[in-house]
């Protein structure tokens, strides 16, 4: 079936099987490999993207369910001239990543969190990121990064 999705501002159409997961569509059909697959069982959050502005886990959505919608991936966060999104900048400045595997998902979940709650407490941030696991366990600096981005 034809699935047409606006990804990071560009309309893309690909002919895919109905069972294609959104994360596969993003990585294999759109060629955007910044979105990672960690657990593939909706637990780790590495595949988090924005669907119509809200963080979701793209391993647990069919591409067909996003047909006609807008999504944003980590590739769409920085400006065209390379200026990082404030959340990416905060992760860099606060050592919010170690191996970096969870980072795209963390950044997407954290920006969605700040959209819903622009002035979160530390506890709000920890609860808000409960769907994202960091295998390097760098949670303290991740939370620090999100709080720093919130204060920008």
């Amino acid at each position, binding site marked *: 079936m034809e699935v047409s999705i606006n990804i990071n501002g560009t309309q893309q159409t690909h002919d895919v099987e*109905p069972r294609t997961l959104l994360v596969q569509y993003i990585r294999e059909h759109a060629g955007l490999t910044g979105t990672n697959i960690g657990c593939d069982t*909706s637990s780790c*959050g590495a595949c988090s993207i924005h669907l119509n502005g809200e*963080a979701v886990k793209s391993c*647990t*959505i069919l591409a*067909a369910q996003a047909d006609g919608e807008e999504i944003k991936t980590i590739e769409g966060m920085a400006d065209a001239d390379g200026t990082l999104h404030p959340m990416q900048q905060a992760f860099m400045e606060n050592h919010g990543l170690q191996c970096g595997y969870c980072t795209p998902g963390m950044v997407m979940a954290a920006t*969605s969190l700040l959209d819903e709650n622009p002035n979160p407490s530390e506890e709000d941030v920890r609860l808000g990121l409960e*769907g994202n696991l960091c295998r390097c366990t760098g949670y303290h600096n991740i939370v620090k990064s999100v709080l720093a981005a919130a204060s920008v």
Partner: protein
Amino acid sequence: MIPAQFDYVRAESAEEAISLIGQHGDEAKFIAGGHSLLPLMKLRLAQPSVLVDIGRLSDLSYIREDGDHIAIGAMTRHMDVETSDVLKQHAPLLAHAAGHVGDPQVRHRGTIGGSIAHSDSASDLPATTLAMGATYVAKGPNGTREIAAGDFFEGFLTTALAPDEMLTEIRVPKMNGAGWSFQKFNRRAQDWAIVGVAAWRNGTESGVGLVNMDSVPVLATSVSAAIASGASIEDAAAEAAAQADPTGDLNASVEYRQHLARVLTKRALTIASS
């Protein structure tokens, strides 16, 4: 993990969805948020040959006051239940419980209708709406009917819905200032409850729903009966596991689950009574 092959159809209305399910028979399934169904399909524990997508029926996503109850469209997502001002005012127990489902990403996708139709006894909203005395509205090829929550959950992942019936609305009575508490005991962030308790109390009246204490969500009527007859919270909570038949698993033995049900019911009733 990729699901087995299926055909996908997106319904434009509830009527169309019901007729599509009717045409395709047993092998077809509704998909709303997909956050219970897709994990099962990826593990090949479910292999429907046709998926009828009802997730974008936006006219079934609403929360509104209707006399003595609040009507919630089946396609309303957990995040919208959690943050609804109407629910926070009139049915705060439900808004609060919805905020305990999974994590924010899950709550952006999963729907209240999907959670109740799926009827996993480990889920938070079936037991919560059962405790509140909710009514579920189902629409089928021959019209609409109302099903009391107490008659809805028939067995493990089995409900009173016919295969070609769609859950369209959840009606919860206004709580009218009753005290309430939702106690969810788990060991990891974002996880399902090992045992959970949803409780409300208004004087001698109360409702207590148990999460993950049986193959179906449990209404602990013996606790409410004890409260109604003037028993102390402690004595009433001692009845919490009396009507439940839990199983043991890696997280908890049968005895530990029974213990948790009593302790969490006591905590919940203490908060709901204060």
